[in-house]
């Protein structure tokens, strides 16, 4: 059978990087084919070539046996290729129907025929289980539903080759499960799917075949049946990767952060943190588990001085820092890896060396009085780039040109490069590949072993379970339970995240290894 899509010897050179080096890839009809690789391996370049955004320097594209050229996104859609980008291309103020018809509006006389489009959207939703209300405004939809709109958009244009660029990076675990159901249903109907990811578990769960690329080259292609996370990780990174964190028992010291009866409002002035109490001690990793939107973001912003505290207090190493300025909090020895690295953590248009000093630019040696000391700034940048393995042609490159993982490494290099008492890591590995995750986890554990108090917030329960010494479960702005990580199972934490009390969770979920042992002894 001829493959639906056949890429042969695709090569693309960028200044300083060979992004794609003679890549071959075949996609069969009704197949989910995962494209696995680290950030910056060349996955996105390849897909942009397929979508007509770049011209390959070399190589051929065959669709259903026909050699073809793709001149741009419109042409790609015409040839049946639809792309769902990681960052959605939707107009928030328009309705779902309007977004779907945008660029291809059917008219009745001079009037847009919204009804016809809405009807087709309903039909597509029914057929593929893509639940969505055609009349809803996109800005009122959750991220998961927005993604469905994107999928509908390409199906509406009759695409039968679907490319999804890291679709789960922005989803909660539940939303990801829903997406997988949808993709399986599409596969059943003969749609062929390229699924770009660096999450091994997802690839094994969803895909039929997987092609691994590293540094622009195809390393191998294999059926997922019979492949394991460890082998895929090794192919992807080029060495053995520790998928679990190894750490010794914590040596815990004094309390570093004390949060008392904290009340904080969110952006809509609704109560987000409602009387939270928390204590993190030196030398331990405190993991905050919770479904997103239960006040974690607001709690961290309140501790770091970015959000006003309505009631209650925050103490740092004995000092009261309730409603202190972000600068004062930083100077108390707090490092903060923010949740949204591009929004809060980096100035994307600035070079790497400037981003490494955005919270210490006013201090020796980076400033001499009122004057910036360029030499010192660039000097330390070289050392940090090496130490934290930031992959870049040079320190003067704007961080916007770096991949997500390397952007995160810039932030981590900056935050860990000064004496710390408390390190706050909010979703530190979101959207990163295994190699970067391993690196970041190691850094966090190292800091903990140095006697730093580490406050980790993560939507990935695996990450919390693997790293934390104690787990605080946050639900509706409060901590419902703070427990020793060894004494609870993942399922029990999951139940508590859904609003159950500790007792209910312990009674209703499988026990952890420690609990089992207690029963035996």
């Amino acid at each position, binding site marked *: 059978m001829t493959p639906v899509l056949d890429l042969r010897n695709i090569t693309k050179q960028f200044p300083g990087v060979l992004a794609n080096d003679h890549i071959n890839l075949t996609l069969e009809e009704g197949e989910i084919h995962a494209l696995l690789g680290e950030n910056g391996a060349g996955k996105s370049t390849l897909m942009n070539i397929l979508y007509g955004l770049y011209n390959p320097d070399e190589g051929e594209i065959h669709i259903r046996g026909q050699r073809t050229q793709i001149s741009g996104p419109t042409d790609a859609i015409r040839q049946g290729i639809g792309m769902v980008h990681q960052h959605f291309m939707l107009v928030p103020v328009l309705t779902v129907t309007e977004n779907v018809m945008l660029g291809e509006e059917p008219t009745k006389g001079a009037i847009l025929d919204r009804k016809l489009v809405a009807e087709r959207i309903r039909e597509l939703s029914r057929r593929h289980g893509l639940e969505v209300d055609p009349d809803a405004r996109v800005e009122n939809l959750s991220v998961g539903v927005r993604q469905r709109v994107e999928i509908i958009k390409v199906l509406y244009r009759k695409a039968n080759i679907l490319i999804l660029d890291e679709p789960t990076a922005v989803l909660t675990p539940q939303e990801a499960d829903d997406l997988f159901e949808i993709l399986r249903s599409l596969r059943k109907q003969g749609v062929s799917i390229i699924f770009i990811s660096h999450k091994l578990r997802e690839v094994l769960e969803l895909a039929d075949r997987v092609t691994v690329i590293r540094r622009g080259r195809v390393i191998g292609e294999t059926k997922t049946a019979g492949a394991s996370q460890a082998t895929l990780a090794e192919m992807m990174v080029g060495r053995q990767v520790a998928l679990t964190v190894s750490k010794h028992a914590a040596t815990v010291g004094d309390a570093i952060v004390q949060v008392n009866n904290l009340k904080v409002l969110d952006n809509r002035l609704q109560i987000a943190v409602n009387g939270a109490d928390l204590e993190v001690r030196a030398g331990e990793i405190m993991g905050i588990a919770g479904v997103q939107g239960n006040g974690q973001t607001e709690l961290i912003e309140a501790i770091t001085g970015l959000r006003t505290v309505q009631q209650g207090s925050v103490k740092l190493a004995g000092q009261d820092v309730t409603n202190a300025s972000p600068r004062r909090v930083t100077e108390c020895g707090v490092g903060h890896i923010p949740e949204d690295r591009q929004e809060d953590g980096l100035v994307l248009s600035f070079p790497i060396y400037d981003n490494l000093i*955005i919270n210490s630019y006013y201090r020796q040696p980076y400033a001499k009085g009122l004057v910036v000391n360029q030499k010192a700034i660039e000097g330390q940048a070289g050392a940090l780039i090496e130490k934290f393995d930031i992959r870049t042609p040079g320190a003067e490159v704007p961080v916007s040109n770096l991949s997500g993982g390397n952007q995160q490494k810039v932030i981590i290099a900056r935050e860990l490069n000064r004496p710390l008492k408390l390190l706050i890591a909010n979703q530190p590995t979101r959207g990163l590949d295994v190699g970067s995750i391993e690196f970041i986890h190691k850094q966090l554990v190292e800091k903990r072993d140095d006697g730093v108090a580490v406050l980790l917030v993560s939507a990935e329960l695996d990450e919390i379970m693997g790293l934390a010494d104690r787990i605080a479960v946050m639900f509706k702005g409060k901590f419902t339970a703070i427990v020793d990580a060894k004494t609870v199972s993942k399922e029990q934490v999951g139940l508590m995240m859904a609003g159950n009390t500790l007792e209910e969770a312990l009674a209703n979920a499988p026990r952890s290894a420690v609990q089992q042992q207690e029963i035996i002894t």
Partner: protein
Amino acid sequence: MSKKAATQSSTAKEAHPAKKQGGVMNAILIPLLAVITALIIGAILILVTEKTVVNAWLHFFDNPGAALKLTWKSVSTAYGAMLEGALNPGGIVKGIGVALRGGGTQDLAVAMVPLAESLTQSVPYIFAGLAVAFAFQGGLFNIGGEGQMLVGALCSVYVGFKVTGLPWAIHLPLALLAGLAGSALWAMIVGALKAYTGAHEVINTIMMNWIAISLSTWLLKVGGPMARPDVPVTPPVLESAWIPRLFTTPGNRFHLGFFLALFVVWLVWWLLYKSTLGFQIRMVGANPKAAKYSGVNVKRLWIIIMGISGSLAGLAGTVQTLAVDRWVGVGFSSGMGFDAIALALLGKNHPVGVLMAALLFGTLKNGATRMQSVAQIPVDIITIVIALVIVFIAAPEIIRTLYRLRKGSISEGPVFTKGWGS
């Protein structure tokens, strides 16, 4: 294949500076081509508005020579007059010749007047352009140059004619300071409104323009608080507060303020790129949320940015009045505060770019006057040429397509401001 081999052999480190150089080339090439293209279109407009030329082209096949000749004559007269009025290269060469033959430097001095006047007319453009560019770098859109200029001019002129009995070395700095302080405070009101109430600076700077204009109309009406009893202008600035003119040739108004402008260009550059304050300003301009995260007091900085930007615009008015006009009348600034936005755009918000753009504006405006009197071409043609330059700079794709230029890196396009909703 050879191309591939070549690129592969160059390492990542070598490839980068080459790309950077291309960016610099583009940064100069596009404005240059924009100016040339605008002048060509201006020439076509000049031709179309001349009846004789149009007639000759309508009868092109009867007498093609005449049509071409008239075309050449028309364009060369117009642009020739402009060149003569703005720079007078022919006169200068002749003047040098006379001086070398021992005929004295009198001719040369006279021939230099147009050039001196072009530089003189550039001075307020330099200050006003810097004002807008500086605010843009901090993410603020200052459309209030008009009002800030007026306030600056009024404050310094007031000190200039009211305070008496001071020596030059004290009176002039005092008048300059009054202008600086007045315009800075005027603009800081807008900064404070943004910081503490969230009111957008675009709206408020426009409002403040109207307040400044109305205030000046009241102050300067005949018999008003700052006007003479007989005419709606201020009394003349005392000589002790004059910015000195440097030449005595009649018509040569070139003054010390030009060098002050050059110094301020350097100062703004230093402030933006070498000082910690500039680092904060550029950070707030590029990403206010990251600035807040990194401990910058964004609200306070907005007020500071507006203050500095306002005082730069104020200098445009102050220097112009203390050096050239030496009094203020109603309608003094006449749109310069808005031209300043174009200057910032043209100069890509870089102080040196703004300087270049301001020199171009001053020269074109100065030349246009001569073009009108000699060739009877309306000055509006030059306004159109300037407008076209701005269009081409704002939409560089037009120039790239026209001249088949390759696009630079994606991040090359300047981000001027976040504008609404930020």
